[in-house]
């Protein structure tokens, strides 16, 4: 009758590809050479997009922009594991997910230029609008999973968010509901260790974010978020589990925000340059490159050719974006409700 052990829990860490480009063969997902190239090319596309977005912003052609530099493995690795019918609920820093899923590149630019038409996901993709209010989209994924289950669809709902989002009430309420109903949902946290100027240890006293899943009765795992194979593997497993009725999974991708929070931020004000430098060495793209070199999948020429190809894609997207005429003022009235109220109609007429 004295103090008894009631329950015990473990949190695991998954990594497959180390910083020198070596993989753990037992854990390495079965990927063809073509697939590995596709992963690499998606990461390069994400980075090229990001670099261009930053330069467009500096030129005043985009508004405030949140860079994804350093998070490409987390985004690409997870997105590649998804099925086209899955529903994706992004935060505002997942352009790598969009790009990997084939979201029109110019629409991403369009959104960050301040035009909501960038959020019109193509019919074949179920990607929700960006969620700027941190963490508040997590319950939407839960609801989509409820709907999918209700309709008997094999769809999984996937929510992406950052470490800061784990402090929000909606994170908790959504996770708890997902646990209660054992829903087909996968929660992917890019723990980039900063929420603007707040470092992880001031965000939570928990030593990992993954352990937060214990509170909800489902699995949480920490993954090396700069290791695209580990992220891919963990996401693939979580999706399979979700599809087979095994309920939700929380995947914490430990990564790092290499750049400023947004173009309106100056990270040098609050974080040590040595920390940034240390993480630069763990660049997810370089790491994959090292592996590919060892496997003979990467060469200077290939690198050059890819760069050219990717730049062309981005150039074209910028052109496409800039060719779109600004929205008409009257469009403001279009989608507040399905139809205009008499008052709205009057206001439209007075424009």
């Amino acid at each position, binding site marked *: 009758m004295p103090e008894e052990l009631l329950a015990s829990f473990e949190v695991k860490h998954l990594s497959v590809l180390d910083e020198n480009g070596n993989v753990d063969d037992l854990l390495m997902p079965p990927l063809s050479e073509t697939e590995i190239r596709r992963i690499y090319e998606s990461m390069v596309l994400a980075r090229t997009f990001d670099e261009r977005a930053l330069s467009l912003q500096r030129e005043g052609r985009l508004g405030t922009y949140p860079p994804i530099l350093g998070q490409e493995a987390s985004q690409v690795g997870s997105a590649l594991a998804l099925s086209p019918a899955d*529903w994706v*609920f992004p935060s505002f820093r997942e352009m790598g997910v969009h790009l990997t899923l084939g979201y029109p590149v110019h629409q991403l630019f369009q959104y960050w230029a301040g035009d*909501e*038409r960038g*959020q*019109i*996901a193509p019919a074949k993709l179920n990607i*929700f*609008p960006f969620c700027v*209010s941190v963490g*508040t*989209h*997590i*319950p*939407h*994924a*839960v*609801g*989509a*999973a*409820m*709907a*999918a289950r*209700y*309709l008997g669809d094999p769809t999984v*709902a996937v929510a992406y968010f950052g470490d800061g989002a784990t402090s929000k*009430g*909606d994170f908790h*309420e*959504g996770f*708890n*509901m997902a646990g*209660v109903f054992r829903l087909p949902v996968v929660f992917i946290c890019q723990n980039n260790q900063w929420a603007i100027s707040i470092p992880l240890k001031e965000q939570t006293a928990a030593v990992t974010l993954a352990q937060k899943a214990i509170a909800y009765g489902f699995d949480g795992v920490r993954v090396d978020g700069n290791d695209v194979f580990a992220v891919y593997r963990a996401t693939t497993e979580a999706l399979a589990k979700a599809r087979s009725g095994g309920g939700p999974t929380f995947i914490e991708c430990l990564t790092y925000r290499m750049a400023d929070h947004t173009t309106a931020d100056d990270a040098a004000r609050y974080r040590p340059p040595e920390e940034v430098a240390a993480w630069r060495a763990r660049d997810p793209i370089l790491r994959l490159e090292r592996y590919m070199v060892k496997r003979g999948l990467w060469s200077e020429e290939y690198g050059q050719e890819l760069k050219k190809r990717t730049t062309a894609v981005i150039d074209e997207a910028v052109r496409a974006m800039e060719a779109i005429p600004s929205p008409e003022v009257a469009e403001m009235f*279009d*989608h*507040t*409700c*399905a139809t205009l*109220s*008499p*008052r*709205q109609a009057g206001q439209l007429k007075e424009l």
Partner: protein
Amino acid sequence: MAQLNMVQAINLALSQEMERDKRIVILGEDVGRDGGVFRVTEGLRERFGAGRLIDTPLSESALIGAAIGMAAYGLLPVAEIQFMGFIYPALDQLFTHAARLRARSRGRFTCPLVVRTPYGGGIKAPELHEESSEALFCHMPGIKVVVPSGPYTAKGLLLAALRDSNPVLFLEPTRLYRLIREEVPEDDYTIPLGRARLAREGQDVTVVAWGSMLERVIKAAAPYDAEVIDLLTLNPCDMETVLASVKKTGRAIIVHEAVKSAGFGAEIAATIAEEAILHLRAPVLRVTAPDVTMPMSKLLDSYLPTLEQIRKALDEVMTY
């Protein structure tokens, strides 16, 4: 046709529409096994199964948030908030997401969601159980706000809300739940959202009210040749009917339970001041709760607009 109270009328609307449209699911705290704390969803779980009457954990924000996700996915969720005083934690979901999803995605996603909640005072309940904060939600473009005033309007408006492709906040005046019985057709009928109802015709003064105040206004106005407008939908508001009446009578009074400052009465008075000024023969009066924190039950009757206060306002505009 049966004589039903409002609880029964709402229950009937829900069950008929659930029968008709398999996309409708109900979710909320205690809506399933318990049939709702006011028994509005009584019997529905037995009839439609636990998959369509979902008891949720105690989380208003996730409950509305999940309903948004369901709606976007293609269902027609009906979320119950147990009392309006507990909708505030979900206000972010309603304002940031439900109200804006269509516009933000330029129509790519919609949010055909109905949020039902008991609302208003006069039931001698604990703190936060008698709120009437409808004005907050009328300031959120993209959400419709509907308030029935009796069993008949409850059924017809709820059916219309369930078939509307926009998010609708459906406020059920708790005091009326079992107070009034009316003929409520078994048949399918809808009352269009955005249209007021002339509850009584009159020549001398227009009184605008909604929800449980309507009943009180009708009583108070008996000795007057008053035109009484039952707003039914607050957002979008049928100002045309209000203005037409005021132009006829030249006098206007608005009665609501909520505190005066920045209440929805202000919007109506302001619209009159903007569009019917030349027709006014008297000040536009508002009879409302005073601008104080809602007291507990001992004082609640003195807080809510009384028959006497409405009469006093009527006298004032008539003798102005």
